[in-house]
């Protein structure tokens, strides 16, 4: 019983973390029609910047949440710059854009190695959440429960943004039909920058939030990117609901797969992706932003 409970809670936690990572990935994919292969790097860079802020890179030691938010803003700015300076020049050439994102991800990995060294950095759990919650025979770290809450809050905020704001309406129009959106006067290229920055910022934020669970180390980017890819293909590109449901599904498959059939853990993880691609290529919720 404890075993099942522990795995269930952990599945939701991991799903929450994946949602933070993949929501931006999905929006970028949906709007710009390219898988942003630097998304893993943004996750890692956010975590690295966050740890530096935590340990006083600005001259003062920030608290965990402030470090996560400032790190995310920095990554968002980097994302905006990348979109403006690199991807913008290749507008319309999707293959070239994908290759650029891949190249930048290698460069980012090496720059991080130079800047932060090869040693893994462990991120301390915020002191207020360092405790455990006991339930039945199982213990649940408060921090992991908090991650679920954070993911839920971010999901709600994104939903409100997409559903209730002018910007959200423009993004939905852009995902739906970029040509038409342009015709009715939406500046789609500006939208690209905003969404790219937003996605980058979310990934950077997720990196720091994931820090106390995953720690930060060279190669973190390559570990996370395939998971984001699975989530988005499963849920459907450009769909917030899709990435939410996809994240939770992958969280469960990941945890239960590894616990029950460890030999087949990766097979089981990628199987739904293959099935979806074969039977429903647009994903479970493809084509609908919400």
């Amino acid at each position, binding site marked *: 019983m404890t075993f099942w409970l*522990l*795995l269930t809670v952990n599945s939701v936690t991991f799903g929450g973390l994946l949602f933070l990572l993949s929501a931006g990935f999905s929006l970028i994919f949906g709007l710009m029609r390219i898988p942003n292969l630097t998304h893993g790097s943004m996750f890692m860079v956010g975590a690295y910047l966050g740890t530096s802020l935590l340990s006083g890179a600005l001259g003062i030691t920030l608290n965990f949440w402030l470090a996560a938010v400032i790190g995310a803003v920095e990554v968002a700015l980097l994302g905006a710059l990348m979109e403006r300076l690199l991807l913008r020049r290749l507008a319309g050439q999707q293959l070239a854009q994908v290759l650029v994102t891949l190249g930048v991800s290698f460069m980012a990995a090496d720059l991080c190695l130079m800047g932060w060294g*090869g040693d*893994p950095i462990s991120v301390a759990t915020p002191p207020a959440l360092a405790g455990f919650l006991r339930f039945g025979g199982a*213990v649940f770290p408060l921090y992991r429960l908090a991650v679920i809450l954070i993911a839920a809050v971010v999901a709600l905020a994104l939903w409100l943004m997409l559903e209730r704001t002018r910007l959200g309406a423009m993004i939905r129009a852009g995902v739906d039909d970029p040509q038409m959106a342009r015709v009715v006067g939406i500046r789609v290229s500006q939208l690209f920058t905003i969404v790219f920055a937003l996605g980058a910022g979310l990934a950077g934020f997720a990196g720091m939030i994931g820090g106390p*669970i*995953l720690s930060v180390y060279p190669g973190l980017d390559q570990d996370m990117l395939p998971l984001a890819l699975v989530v988005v293909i499963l849920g459907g590109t450009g769909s917030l609901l899709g990435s939410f449901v996809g994240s939770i599904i992958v969280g469960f498959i*990941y945890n239960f797969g590894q*616990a029950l059939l*460890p030999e087949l853990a990766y097979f089981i993880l990628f199987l739904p992706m293959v099935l979806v691609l074969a039977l429903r290529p647009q994903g479970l919720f493809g084509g609908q932003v919400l």
Partner: protein
Amino acid sequence: MFRKLTPRKENLAFRKMTRRALLAGTAAGTAAALARFPTPAIAQAAPFKLGLLTVKTGPLAQGGIQMEQGVLTYLKETNYTMGGRKVDLVSADTGGNPAGTKTKAQELIERDKVDAILGPLAAFELLAITDYIREQKTPTLSVAGADDLTQRRPNPYFLRAAAASSQAMQPMGHYAATEMKLKRVVTISEDFAFGYEQMGGFQSAFQQDGGCIVSKLWPPLVTPDYTPYAAQISDCDGVCQGFAGSNPLRFMKAYANTGLKYPVVTGETGGDDALLKSFGEEAIGLISCTPYTVDLDTAGNNRFVEGMLKNYDTIPGQYAAIMYVSCQVIAAGLQAVGGDASDKEKFMAALRAVSLTDTPRGPVKFDHFGNIVGTFYVRRLGTEGAKYGLKLWNKTIKTYENVSQFWTWPEQEFLAHPVYSRDYPPLTKC
């Protein structure tokens, strides 16, 4: 460059010399140089070429960078000399993959004509070049563990100053059974050869002393979150983990987060001193058995640690230490052959015969397969004795001296078994 520095007047005088006079002068100079030194000395005046195969990019870079730092610390300390010869270091980044390792090894041997190779880091890299270095007869000293390279498939040009994969785990198994009095242990390690060989060594030694393995867990090399595996650990009184790289960090976190309290034992990568600054409180109590410990208070180790701190402001782990020791071995071997490494068979024989008493890892000698016979240290991770500004420290609690890769078993008996694998030794009823 040189001409620029020459005073103008002399330069003019030089131009006025006839071509014939210049030629005669140069010839005379060369003759004089030849007369002054006998020929063999000229050969030795050329630097000894040392190749380093390391990994400076990607996930293995942490160990790879430490390897290079260990080598450079040795070279700086000795002013780039080994056995009386100047040393020329050629460093190559394999990228951490077998194909890259093969390419770089070929470059080092065929283009740079190195006399010996240090590295590579990982067993799969070493396996990619083992036949090639044997053909080329290039002495190679690596940190890579792969048991069989000094057991059932020995390579005469390979020396290992670190430890075979299973070597440190055998004393660890003995210690767990006899001193920690553990009876039932769950093993967990990465799903690849290094993991199998470590756990196989632990299981064999642990069972010999009355312990029993309840189950074996094999997470894939890339496992962002170990909680699903930690959740499977039950019905035991101890855990043996064999993780490498940054994985020990995340495993210990997930382990503590799952609320597990059984004592954890590990080997050289799972408790590596280079991880001390990254570990948090969740790792306190971790028992590790390693071929190198920064805690060793000898003149040889203190000099090395101070060198690493001075040059790189870094606490050395086993990768740096073993490369430093490997340099000491090469220097001693080169000394023994009078600085002449041109006869590769003779040089290799001298390297294999090296016996040192005060290296950072303690005394060093090799068995007839070229594998280390040395001291292994059992340490407990805690706050006691912490130095160099660290909060956590691996405090030595027992040393095993003269540990061979065959542990207490006769060589023949050991080699009659298949190499340790996922299913060997098999699980017994427990």
